[in-house]
């Protein structure tokens, strides 16, 4: 048992999987340069010492190296490929969506792409092009699994499950949750450390998790918003409002079993999402809940999300962009009024 942050837990998870299976390798920019940072957020720091041949530094060529990962996976390797900022996934999206996600289907099931993709997201003082929440672009891609990790325990377990899965899996991580240290520490970071067991474990790719039980309202969130939702629930509790907080975690497929169990009890749902409200993941979850559990809803599902704007730089606006505890609390109060 040891307490770790997400960056450390991912690092150990990657190392253990590489140890276990020689087909696993890492591909990305600046992931394994001696004297470098181990990727943009220290996740792969030092791994090149242990695996000199399987930590492959790429040129700045996202379309290309996501294609390279896809090709290697097609030949039976198990690449873990990352972008430094999720925003750059847009450069690679042709290879991800048109090739990695479709090849199995269009080959009539004969091709297999066991490939893990990792992308840090979130608005963190860097302006519009290093800040987007990219989940929305990938949840509607058949053939692709999408997960989001908000604790170190999950990060490690989900990474391992993803490596062992036979499909392309996109893992979203949040810059404020890594717990990266030293020069790469992140101002405004939120504690996402966990007690990590010593042995091997995995966390399923298709399961939401109840972070806090409650009877009055269901709050759904993921990544940073799962933390903010939990904080909001604490505040609400002091007001005798018992909110159930669910970390949605698996964004595609969505775990409607866990969500439904809660919604049936509470009848009221608030979904919290970092990212513009229009066209976000919360839209899918809201529509999905209405379809499946409409008769249990006591009120329309509420979305708490960012304004429909690109991410602004200046902290005063960025803070207004990012949903926070106060907005979640206010939305719940309004819903229960």
């Amino acid at each position, binding site marked *: 048992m040891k307490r770790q942050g997400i960056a450390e837990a991912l690092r150990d998870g990657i190392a253990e999987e590489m140890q276990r299976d020689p087909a696993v390798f890492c591909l990305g920019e600046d992931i394994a340069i001696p004297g470098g940072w181990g990727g943009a957020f220290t996740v792969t720091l030092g791994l090149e010492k242990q695996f000199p041949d399987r930590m492959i530094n790429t040129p700045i060529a996202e379309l*290309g190296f996501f294609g390279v990962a896809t090709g*290697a996976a097609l030949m039976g390797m198990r690449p873990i490929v990352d972008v430094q900022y999720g925003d750059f996934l847009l450069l690679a999206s042709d290879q991800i969506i048109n090739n990695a996600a479709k090849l199995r*289907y269009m080959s009539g099931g004969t091709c297999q792409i066991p490939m893990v993709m990792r992308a840090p997201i979130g608005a963190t003082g860097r302006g519009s092009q290093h800040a987007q929440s990219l989940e929305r672009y990938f949840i509607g891609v058949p053939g692709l699994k999408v997960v989001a990790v908000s604790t170190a325990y999950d990060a490690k377990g989900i990474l391992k499950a993803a490596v062992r899965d036979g499909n392309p899996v996109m893992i979203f991580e949040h810059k404020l949750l890594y717990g990266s240290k030293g020069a790469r520490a992140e101002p405004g970071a939120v504690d996402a450390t966990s007690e990590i067991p010593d042995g091997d474990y995995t966390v399923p790719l298709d399961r939401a998790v109840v972070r806090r039980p409650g009877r009055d309202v269901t709050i759904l969130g993921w990544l940073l918003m799962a933390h903010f939702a939990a904080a909001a629930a604490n505040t609400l509790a002091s007001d005798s409002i018992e909110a159930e907080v669910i970390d949605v975690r698996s964004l595609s497929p969505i775990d409607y079993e866990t969500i439904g169990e809660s919604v049936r009890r509470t009848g009221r749902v608030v979904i919290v999402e970092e990212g513009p409200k229009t066209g976000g993941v919360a839209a899918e979850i809201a529509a999905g809940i209405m379809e499946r559990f409409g008769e249990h809803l006591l009120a329309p599902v509420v979305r708490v999300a960012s304004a429909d704007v690109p991410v602004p730089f200046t902290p005063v606006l960025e803070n207004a962009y990012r949903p926070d505890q106060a907005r979640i609390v206010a939305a719940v109060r309004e819903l229960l009024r």
Partner: protein
Amino acid sequence: MTTSHTSPNASSATAASAHDPAFLLELYRRLVLIRQFEDRVKFLFLEGSMPGTIHQCQGQEATAVGVCAALAPDDFITSTFRGHGHAIAKGLSVQELMDELFGASTGCCRGKGGSMHVGNLAKGMVPGIAIVAGGIPLAAGMSLAFKLRGSRQVTACFFGDGAVAEGAFHEGVNMAAIWSLPVIFVCENNLYGASTRVDLVMRNPRISDRAASYGFRGETVDGNDVLAVLEATRRAAEECRAGHGPVLLELLTYRRTGHSRRDPCNYQPKDEREAWATRDPIERFAEVLREAGLADAAALARIHAAVDAEITQAIEQARRAPQPTIADLTTDVFA
């Protein structure tokens, strides 16, 4: 890093003597098989009995056959939307291809792929990637897998002149170069990307020259000379297997059919079409075989007839082949 340009009209009659006659006749049969396959498919398509759209390779058969004949069975190829010829050359059966074009569940992609995505991993062919240049990074990745595993396999990556302008070409080729990956980049330069002539989209249309700027060897080859293609590919494969990294082969050829479906090719000047018609890869190779005394007109005719029978039979069977059922819609999405 040298770039050599072979004259497009170099005769290969002498080259023929270096090969086993049966092998040469098999090359010829493959050329004819591709041509007849494409001609029959075109007819089926125009008469309306085949669904979808088609991109065909009449006139370019020697690139597919020459390259694939130089590969080992466990080597791989990647292809494009124009993949029928590559597939036949790599050893996919006419039946599994024809079934696929008819959308049958017995097709090489169980009817889910179609003309643009034919392939069969078990035979060393990735489903065609119909995004121009999209197969180039893929091929680099496949060869990275070979290198990481220490196997001696190579990937031959087919793409057109049009693909050279894409970012995926640049990124994929560069990574193959810096990591010395065993990839043969096979550019079938048929002078046009859809209706756009190469000289409209590059200042220097000698594509093999590009290799130098990535630091490896490029070579321009007469792509309508199957033996020249074969030899160039063998050399390239050897360099790849020796760990020297990729090679770029520019195969000069010409598309004698429409870009897709009912394209009348009005953008191809008449004199250009006619000049290339005189360099037909099948007729030229027939000439080589005749000159080398390996086959007379009757022998060649027997090959044509056998091919014709094989294809006719495949079409008959494909027409009756089982179609997927609605339940198949949602299978094969996840492993």
